[in-house]
Structures are given as structure tokens and as C-alpha cells.
């Protein structure tokens, strides 16, 4: 018989040990999954986790790491602030798409003019677009009490349809020979989100991701707003007594995470992706939720978790190429990681006693 005793405060040791434990458990469970799929588990794990970092073509893949981790980190940094306050924005994918649409629209409207003002204007438009899309659930929550979870999620599907409409309609490349998709912004110097250090994969979006981590760290640890967010999450009733206005908190958290997700989308469309197509939304907004939890809603943790998830994307692509491992296997892998993390978290909040409890 197992008895659980609640800890007076979460264990700091286990708070950091559980993500490591979860990664190890996921590798074992993933190995079993790969074996079921008829692949050599050790080879699959090596191809996914080792080769991109230390293998023959590691030089190329290390650059890819930041390209994939950049948007994840940028989105997760914003989500973590809301999650700490118990405000669940799970529609970052939609805010990411709308940010990209707004950023690209500014660029395409200015085309073919060249000016140093175009890129900053796109950044502003991307952030505003994501912010506005995040403010819809915020307003519906504070005005009418509608669940921000369901509204933000529904808006992902609305945004995806908006994206498809834009790719086939107003943003379609007039010189694209009838193919859907916008002009490629990589070929438009004023709008191109360039790689800042050759071969590193670091573009303005990755820099923004780092800035967001520092910014949210300062906010949460050195600012009264961060304290209020923390209290609201830990003790909603106490927060009200301490003068925290829930409505302003909801608007702040959803607005911030929306703006950061919008920025991520804008940097992606102006850089690595280059154009608006109907398949532009690649699920970064959902994977970022895993990154936020795996990183313990903490900036340093999010940086590490973002790089790890980026690695699974790159390693997954490699495994697909070399071992014919289906792309969906990586999605399963990411889902399992979150399960293990949530399960092992029991150790953070409770002590486990073996043996019969005396009544």
C-alpha cells in the first residue's frame, strides 16, 4: 500500500529532477515504441538525440536547432507567465498564425519598395496581430466569463481557415503562376528576417526569444506584477484581498502571450519559412505548451526545454529520412514526455510512503 503525504512546499530538488527523469523515461518508452515499429531502438535514439549534435553533419544541424527552438522559446516564455497565474492560453497556435499574417501583409503591401522601416513595421504588426487575437479570449473572459481555454482553442481553427483563405486569396503571389501561397519574403531584402551569424541559425526571432526569457525573468522575480501573478496562481482568493484585479491580470497575460506568439509567427514567415502558405502553422503553438511545462514555467528551464524539443524535431526528420520512422512517432514522443513529466511531478508535491498507513 502506498500513502501520499502532501509536502508543506513543493520540493526544489524534485522540481528540477522530474524533467530529467521524464526525459529518460520517455527515451525508454520511445525505444519500446520504436521497437514495436520494427526499428532498432538504440539506433533510433542515437539518430534523434545524438547525431544532430555530434554526428557527421552536426555543423549543419546545430544551426537548425536555433531555427526550431526560437519560436518555441518565444511562445513558451509568454505562455509560462499566464500558466503561473492560472490563465490558460492554449490558442498560441492561432496567435502565431495571425501574427504571421499581419507581419506578411505589411511586407506585401509595401512590396517592392525598399526601406529600413519595413522590417520594424512588420515586427510591430506581428506583435499587434497576436496581441489582438489573444485579447479576444481575454475580453470574452473578463466581460462575459467565457472560458479562455475553449475560446482561445476555437480561435486556432478560425485562424487556420483565415490562413488558408489568405494563401489562396488576398495574399496570393500575383506572379505565382496560379499556385497558392504568397511571395517569398526571403527574396525581398527589406522584409527578410536574415540569419545574424552565418551558420548559427540565429535570426531576429531567436534574439527576441532570448529577450523574452530575460524580460519574463525580470517581470516574475523583480517586479511587483510578477508577484501578483504568482499570488493569483497560488491563492486566487488571497490575490483579490491583496488588490489584484483579476480582469487586468487576464488581459495582461493573454495579451502578452498573444503578442509574443504573434512575433514568433512574424519572424518565422519573414525568415525560415519565407511565405504564407496554407500549411504555415506547423504546431509550434501547441509544442510550446509542452516546452513551458517541461521548463517548469521558468526562463532557464524553457531555454533548455526549447532546445530539447527542437532536437526532437530535427532528429525526428533525420530518423524519418534514414530509418523511415513515421513523422507522427515524434508527436507521440512529445506527448509521452508531457505525460511522464506530469506523472512524476507527484514527487515534487508529495512524499510517497510505502507500507500500510495506520488509521
Amino acid at each position: 500500500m502506498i500513502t501520499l503525504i502532501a509536502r508543506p512546499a513543493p520540493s526544489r530538488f524534485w522540481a528540477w529532477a522530474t524533467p530529467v527523469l521524464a526525459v529518460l523515461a520517455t527515451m525508454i518508452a520511445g525505444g519500446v515504441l520504436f521497437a514495436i515499429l520494427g526499428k532498432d531502438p538504440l539506433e533510433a535514439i542515437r539518430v534523434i538525440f545524438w547525431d544532430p549534435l555530434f554526428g557527421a553533419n552536426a555543423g549543419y544541424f546545430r544551426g537548425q536547432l536555433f531555427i526550431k527552438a526560437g519560436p518555441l522559446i518565444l511562445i513558451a516564455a509568454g505562455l509560462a507567465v499566464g500558466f503561473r497565474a492560472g490563465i490558460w492560453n492554449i490558442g498560441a497556435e492561432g496567435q502565431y498564425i495571425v501574427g504571421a499574417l499581419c507581419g506578411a501583409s505589411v511586407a506585401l503591401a509595401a512590396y517592392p519598395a525598399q526601406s529600413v522601416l519595413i522590417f520594424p513595421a512588420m515586427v510591430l504588426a506581428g506583435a499587434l496581430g497576436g496581441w489582438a487575437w489573444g485579447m479576444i479570449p481575454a475580453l470574452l473572459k473578463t466581460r462575459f466569463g467565457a472560458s479562455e481555454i475553449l475560446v482561445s482553442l476555437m480561435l486556432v481553427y478560425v485562424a487556420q481557415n483565415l490562413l488558408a483563405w489568405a494563401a489562396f486569396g488576398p495574399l496570393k503571389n500575383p506572379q505565382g503562376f496560379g499556385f497558392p501561397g504568397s511571395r517569398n519574403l526571403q527574396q525581398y531584402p527589406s522584409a527578410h528576417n536574415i540569419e545574424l551569424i552565418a551558420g548559427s541559425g540565429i535570426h531576429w526571432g531567436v534574439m527576441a526569444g532570448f529577450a523574452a526569457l530575460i524580460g519574463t525573468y525580470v517581470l516574475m522575480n523583480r517586479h511587483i506584477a510578477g508577484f501578483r501573478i504568482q499570488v493569483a496562481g497560488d491563492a486566487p482568493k488571497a490575490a483579490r484581498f491583496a488588490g489584484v484585479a483579476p480582469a487586468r491580470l487576464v488581459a495582461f497575460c493573454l495579451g502578452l502571450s498573444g503578442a509574443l506568439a504573434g512575433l514568433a509567427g512574424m519572424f518565422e514567415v519573414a525568415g525560415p519559412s519565407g511565405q504564407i502558405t496554407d500549411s504555415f502553422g506547423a504546431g509550434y503553438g501547441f509544442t510550446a505548451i509542452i516546452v513551458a511545462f517541461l521548463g517548469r514555467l521558468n526562463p532557464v528551464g524553457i531555454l533548455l526545454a526549447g532546445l530539447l524539443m527542437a532536437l526532437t524535431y530535427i532528429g525526428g526528420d533525420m530518423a524519418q529520412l534514414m530509418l523511415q520512422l513515421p513523422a507522427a512517432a515524434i508527436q507521440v514522443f512529445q506527448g509521452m514526455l508531457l505525460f511522464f513529466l506530469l506523472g512524476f511531478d507527484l514527487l515534487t508535491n508529495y512524499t510517497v510512503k510505502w507500507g500500510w498507513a495506520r488509521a
Partner: protein
Amino acid sequence: MGMGAGMMLGGIDLVALAAMLMVASTPILLAATGELIAEKAGVLNLGVEGMMIMGAIGGFAGAVLTGSPAVGFVAGAISGALMALLFGFLTQVLLSNQVATGLALTLFGLGLSALIGKGFEGVRPPATGKLDLGALGDLPVLGPILFRHDWVVYFSLGLVVAVWLFLHLSRSGLILRAVGENHEAAHALGYRVVAVRMGALAFGGALAGLGGAYLSLVRVPQWTEGMTTGAGWIALAIVVFGSWRVERVLLGAYLFGGVTVLQLRLQAAGYAIPVQLLSMAPYVITIVALVIISARHRHGAQAAPAALGRIFHASR
């Protein structure tokens, strides 16, 4: 205009529309009814989408491999229930956060179903026969709308009645509601909170799985990756819209089915509205419905079960 053409409005056949409405509403009705039971027991399972898509592929695989749609529906229900038990183990035994675990269930289900589904793309499932209701099916107008469907449509309606009776008239229903309203008190009275919740979750998962199987075996009918396209999330919204009452959940599911069918018909009728903008309609309407009902509840009695989403840890 002959009788065969039916009643037309703006290029849309109203009888065919109403008949399609019942089929379109059924998967959502099943999933929402299941989630209602789980939530009435105090558990917020946001993984409906993941359970539905696993039911869709589980049911599809079961039906294709055995050639029997009935086996498929059972397999779909089992797939959904297994997913729900995984959620139950994490949230009830390992006491994990229900919102995060529900999200994980959805992400995991979307991935795993895509993985299993690789070999089933482009395959046609065995057809699910329509029930022969004799003379009822030959009635003008009402016949095609109400009496020419497969058994799952009638099963889902019977289920609504059964769940209403269970919640309002049975002793077990009372215990379920007690657990959902105040788990400490229910525990003190000697009811096994975790066991009740596990049962409610498994029931909800089975229905979500059945709803998913209905999508892949009847509604579409084929397997494509991510084919639930938010149906599970809409089912969650319909539980809120229905104020946790099964008869209103039925109304919500049929309203939603109506909107879906209408926008599909408008697409087919060739109006000059872009297809993608019409496809937004079900999600936008869901948001609007959610807002209206939330606003109405704001200043009234709380409709949600009081212990919904809260972690239960018995110290004794």
C-alpha cells in the same frame, strides 16, 4: 416541381439538410454526453479531442480488419476508454493537473492516431447499414428526416434519455453528483471518490471513442490524419453551453450540427463566399454560444459542478 425535389430554399434541399443534421450532430452528441458524466463527477477532461481521434482510428482499424462495422464501433469505444483511463491514472492516482493532463492526452492522441493510421489511408470502411423502420421510413418529409438512419443515431438519442434518468432518478446518479459537488463530504460519507471518477471517465472516454468511430465509419467515411478537426473541443464547449444538463446538451449538439450542415450546403450550392470563411462558421458560432451562456450564468446560480477540476487527495 415534383415531390421528389423536396422543399428548396436558396438552392438548398431542406429535407436533405435536416436528415444530414442528425448524422452531423451524432458524434458531438456522443462525446458531449460522455464528457457531461465525467464533469458531473467533478473531473474536467480536456482530452476529448484526443479520445475521439483514437476512437476514430481504433474504430476504423477494427471495422476494416474484421469487415464488421459493429466490431469497429466497439473497438472505437474501447480505444477512447483506454485513453480516458490513462488520464484517470494520471489525474486521480498521480494527482496531476487536469488542464495540463487533458492537453497532453489530446497531443498524444493526435500523434498516436496518425502513427497507427498510416496503413489505413485511402481505405474504404465496410458500410454501416441503415435501420429498416418499415412504414415509418416511407412517411413523407418526416421519413427521410427522422427514420432512415443507422442505429448509432438512435442509440445516441436513447443515451440522452438514459443519462437523464440515471442522473435524476437513480441512487448511483446521486452519488456521482455528490462526488462532483463536494468530494470531501462524499469521501467522509464513505463513497469511493476515485473509483466513481474512474468509472465516469471511462464511460466518457468510451462515448468520445464511439463518436470518433462514427466520424470515420459513417460521417466521412474514411481515415485522414487529424480528421476530428476540433470536434472534441466543440463537445467540451457544448457541455458548458448545455449548463451541465443533458437535455440542453442535446439541443446544443443539434444546433451545432445544423450550423455545420448549413455551411457545407452553402459551400456546395456555390455561393460567392470563400470556402475557408464558411468553414470558420462552426467555431465562431461555438464561441458566440459560449459567450451568451456564460453571460447568462454570470449573475445566477453556478451551473458547473462545484468540485470540477479540483484535485482530490484523501488525507485519511
